[in-house]
């Protein structure tokens, strides 16, 4: 039983950063922008969150700093792609390379330090329930925040006027512009929201999951989050499920040897990457389904010609 509970806890902890990063990118892509810099925003968020927590001694200061840092990185992307009309793929790559370099440079002094433990939610009665208690009621606040974020995002996209405008802009930015919606403004906001989310995902890595700072600690999770958005066909709850699926795979990797699997650790470490490829193939081979929700203008530069 303890093993089961441990595995469930491990899945939740592994999935939460992916939930944040994927949901942020989902909104960005819904608005028609492809930001491949998730990895870069995550790593900068991871460092900012870690550094602020150490320097200011507050977990929540760290969380705020991570969101801010991610949003600033996204702002850089927004200026380049939205105002200066740079190619989105190239700019996203640049953001990732720059982010990884910057975090490594600024993070040197934090190497080897570890983050203070984050307090867990405790609900008297509920948290003590066997199995259900620790799985449902014993996490840090970020886990619940991630779930709430998915719920709010799903509701926002479906039921609010602003959500509708975002979908419309991603579908056809010229038409949206023609009827008077501020395409670039919406995309700036969406991008910065996406950046903040990626930053939070990064901070969860360095503050809860690991919890210490190492160079390149995101190890491709930003890219996996991008894949999750494709996997979800741009539906928030599917992105959430996808993240938990990947959390599960990561856990096989961590617990594999504990469970007596006699496999090279590197082979197990490959699992998330292989799973990403398989998932991408499965989802994209069904063309009609993949296209159904795909924003039609995804990745295209919008130029206000008139």
């Amino acid at each position: 039983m303890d093993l089961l509970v441990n595995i469930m806890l491990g899945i939740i902890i592994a999935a939460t950063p992916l939930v944040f990063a994927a949901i942020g990118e989902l909104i960005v892509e819904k608005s028609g922008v492809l930001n491949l810099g998730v990895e870069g925003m995550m790593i900068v968020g991871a460092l900012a969150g870690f550094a602020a927590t150490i320097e200011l001694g507050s977990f929540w200061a760290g969380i705020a700093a991570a969101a801010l840092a991610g949003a600033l990185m996204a702002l850089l992307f927004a200026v380049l792609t939205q105002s200066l009309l740079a190619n989105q793929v190239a700019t996203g790559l640049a953001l990732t390379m720059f982010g990884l370099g910057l975090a490594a440079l600024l993070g040197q002094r934090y190497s080897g330090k570890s983050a203070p433990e984050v307090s867990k939610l405790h609900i008297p009665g509920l948290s003590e329930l066997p199995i259900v208690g620790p799985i449902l009621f014993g996490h840090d606040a970020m886990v619940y925040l991630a779930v709430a974020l998915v719920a709010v995002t799903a509701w926002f996209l479906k039921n609010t006027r602003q959500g509708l405008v975002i979908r419309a802009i991603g579908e056809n930015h010229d038409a949206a512009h023609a009827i008077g919606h501020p395409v670039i403004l919406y995309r700036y906001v969406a991008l910065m929201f996406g950046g903040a989310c990626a930053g939070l995902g990064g901070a969860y890595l360095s503050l809860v999951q690991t919890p210490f700072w190492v160079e390149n600690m995101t190890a491709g999770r930003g890219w996996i989050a991008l894949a999750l958005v494709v996997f979800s066909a741009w539906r928030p709850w599917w992105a959430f499920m996808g993240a938990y699926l990947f959390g599960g795979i990561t856990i096989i990797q961590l617990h594999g040897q504990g469970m007596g699997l006699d496999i090279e650790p590197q082979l197990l470490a490959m699992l998330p990457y292989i799973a990403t490829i398989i998932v991408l193939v499965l989802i994209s081979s069904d063309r009609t389904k993949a296209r159904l929700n795909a924003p039609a203008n995804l990745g295209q530069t919008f130029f206000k010609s008139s």
Partner: protein
Amino acid sequence: MFRIEPRKEPSRAMAYATPFLALLLTILAGFVLFALLGKDPLKATWIIFIEPLTTLYSISEMMVKATPLILIGIGLALGFRAGVWNIGAEGQFTMGALTGGAMALALYQIEGFWVLPLICLAGIFGGMAWAAIPALLRTRFNTNEILVSLMLVYIATLLLSIMVHGPLRSPEGMNFPESRLFHDAALMPVLIEGTRAHWGFIVALLVALAAYLLLRFHIVGLALKVVGQAPRAARFAGFSEKRMVWFSFLVSGGLAGLAGVFEATGPVGQLVPALPVGYGFTAIIVAFLGRLHPAGIVVGGLLLALTYIGGESAQISMQLPSSTTRVFQGLLLFFLLTTDILVNYKIKSVRARPGAITLNRP
């Protein structure tokens, strides 16, 4: 107020000027960065950008580092022209080193002029095979090649690690995760005596020349461009997009593999887990900096090699962190993309005319 106006045609002058403008801006940003790190900006800039050009040793080291950057950059540029985003050259580089290295170890102590070419072929094949995966998945299942090729980088690195920990581990290596040192017949001949610069650099220049001829005078060069710029026009012209995807991936994968095997049989001389050091990613910057043109890529490759060498010596003499180079490279790409707008658009300062003012503020 500024107004962005599209040019009727891309400005050639700007296409040549912006890479230099971007470099200048990067150096200026570097000044700020060094000042913030508490280092002397002038000295640091001197050490990174000028000093390496003053000694034969560092010039030869530049050639060592420019070799993979040029080789990979050329391959990537072909694909980028066609809208094929091979982001996983690092993985193909790793696999090239691995298969080439495995061949070298299989031929251990065997002499013959054919040994090295065979090793190189194995490396090319390894890179191609690795690149064939995203090519196949994109052409067959329409799977996003960016994500697939990138995931394969992580897998390739882990695969290399497994191999040097296991089957390819040196029997005399006291259990260190590394292969034997390759024997002489399996090593790249040195270009300049007493340095590590090898003949791979000449090969890279020849590849650039071949790519230039292909792009300028062959139908494939035209087809790549048409597929990338106007996919429907490509179908109209009878250029197969699938074939271009395959071509781009196989060529860029093969060249990355060749770069990998050059690295293994050249400066490194054996297989180690830390063989891939990011050339595959830096080459993306090289390709863009060179405007996807072979001649530009040669210059771009040398320039980024310079930042590596300069970064290393600044690390030693000024205690600048090694990651400074990566920040520099990222900044360079950013500034390049920023200034790119000048190629296709005119920036005009708009002075509102009196009539317009009364109109906007009645």
